[in-house]
């Protein structure tokens, strides 16, 4: 009888895959950084902003270099076409073609939604490495959309970070934060941020769609869908300059 039990347990051990060894939060954050940060990137995107009374879609193209530099140009609809944004470090500038003026986005304006979307200007600025910004703990494993995810509770290392606390579900296969809950210092849930339908670009997995839901507003949702993503793009020397912005 005893030998039979040993045999059964031995067979079970052969059939079941070994349980994933639980990574540390730091390891997961480093893995996320490997996917989400880049040396250079170009993408086209459409941004659908759903409000209770109407839905508006913007078309844009965006360039990025490292964690500091970013440039965005809206190409549609007509009234926003030509509007450009330039991020340099922790500064954000917007060129308004209808008045031919450049506006620095600062102070309370940073908390407003980009083109009225659920994504704030402040969110645009926060492109630093997750590893550099947060520390935290893995609190368990949960399934999202039928895929196992590590659940992390992250705390900001610096009080200048927009969201002092994040609860993040990191897909075990993709190493992407497929769902995030972004909290204020008070513990209030501010936003929910989903990263969906990732595609592989060499070693990198990158989401082709962001869904952002501002929890302080009712019945709003912003979906950014990327296309023509290119992580090997050669960027012009003046791509992130004021000259480009006001050209």
């Amino acid at each position, binding site marked *: 009888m005893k030998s039979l039990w040993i045999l059964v347990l031995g067979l079970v051990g052969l059939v079941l895959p070994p349980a994933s060894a639980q990574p540390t939060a730091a390891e997961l954050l480093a893995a996320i950084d490997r996917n989400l940060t880049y040396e250079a990137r170009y993408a086209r995107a459409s941004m659908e902003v759903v409000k209770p009374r109407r839905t508006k879609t913007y078309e844009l193209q965006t360039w990025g270099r490292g964690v500091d530099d970013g440039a965005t140009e809206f190409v549609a609809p007509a009234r926003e076409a030509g509007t450009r944004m330039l991020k340099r470090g922790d500064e954000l500038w917007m060129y308004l073609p209808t*008045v031919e*003026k450049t506006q620095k986005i600062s102070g309370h304006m940073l908390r*407003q939604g980009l*083109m009225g979307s659920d994504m704030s200007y402040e969110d645009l600025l926060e492109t630093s490495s997750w590893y550099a910004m947060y520390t935290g703990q893995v609190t368990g494993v949960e399934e999202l959309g039928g895929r196992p995810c590590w659940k992390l509770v992250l705390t900001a290392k610096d009080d200048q970070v927009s969201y002092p606390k994040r609860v993040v579900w990191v897909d075990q296969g993709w190493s992407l934060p497929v769902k995030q809950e972004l909290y204020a210092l008070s513990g209030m849930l501010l936003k929910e941020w989903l990263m969906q339908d990732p595609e592989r670009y060499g070693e990198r997995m990158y989401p082709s769609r962001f869904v952002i839901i501002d929890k302080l507003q009712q019945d709003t949702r912003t979906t950014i869908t990327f296309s023509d993503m290119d992580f090997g793009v050669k960027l012009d020397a003046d791509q992130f300059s004021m000259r480009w912005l006001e050209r």
Partner: protein
Amino acid sequence: MVWLARMALRNLARNARRSLLTGVAVVVGTALLTVGLSWINGVTTTIFSNAADLAGQVRVATPAFVLREARLPLYENLEQTDALVQAVQALPGVRAYPAIRTQVTATVDEDIGEHIAPILGAPLPYYQDVLGLPAKVVQGRGHGPDPSEAVLGAAIARDLGAGIGDDLVVLGQTQDGSLSPLKLAVVGIAETGNGLGDRLIFVPLERARWLADIPDGGLELLVFGDDFRAAAALAARIRALPELEGLSVQAWLEREPYDQLEQIVSKIFNFLSGIIVVVTAMVVLNTMLMSVLERTSEVGVLRAMGMKRSHTVGLFVLEAMMLGGAGSALGVLVGSMPALYLQRVGVDLGDEITAKVDVPVSAVMHGLHTPQIAGRIFLLGFVIAVLGAALPAVRAASIQPVEAMRRKK
């Protein structure tokens, strides 16, 4: 009775100095009352009329906008206003104008965002016919056919350092919350006559629609009839229109802050009017009382000679009616001259006071003299004069004649 009237007339002539002094008191009292009440009437009418002009005698908006009005939520708009305008203007004598008001940062310098200012977008006929804006332009001109032209209130023009021909850059928001810039040409600076209007940037509706990205609509529909005092009745008629079902329709005095403004202003000016009326009445009453009381011995003589009590009282009442009637009529006439002068010229309070309050108080306060006010004051002077004479006359006539004759003059 004719004999009593003749006797009263003779009595008035008999002591001309006394009659003159009593009459002058009535004239001065009613004249002051005429000036005071006309001016108060003008001030309250101006405040309420300004409020109704800016806010609309009746305002149509979505209930959700009304609920969050303090935040001027652009997304709670009337999406299509043409059909609403058509439905409302089908009522005889009614005009309707879509309007958009929102907050923007405005500048005439290089950098955007130095001054926060309210901007009003409305059709040009609203500026012309309701606000009379072109006539209030003190520099430059009113709006022309170019929709990019702005007329600035004098106070905001001063704050911005804006002059005619300057480019005014405003940064507002669309109804979606997206930043929305607008370049406008300053073509006129207007002294609207009230602090609220002087802080406004006036632009054509078309431009405000672009700014807010509400292509065919507005935040409010401002509706006007013939008389702002009849706004509640007009609101009731508009509410009955099937095209406006589900929308909020409010007369200006049913809306915040105008409901409270109306109550507060009415209370203050009713109190002031009351003081003026009481003081004037006391002067007239006192003069009449004294003039009859000093004639108590005369009442005794008349009674001793066989005059009935009722005739004695009647004699004094008739005297008072003649004096009060003539005095009040003359008083109203005399008071009407300065009242009409105040109506035309007004009293300049200076825009330092009016620019700081959030009610449409005019810097120059004009009176408003009306036949109704003149009629009421005449009646008041007359009644007080008669009462002032009748009360002591009844008392004197009830005293024994011998006792009455003993009373010193």
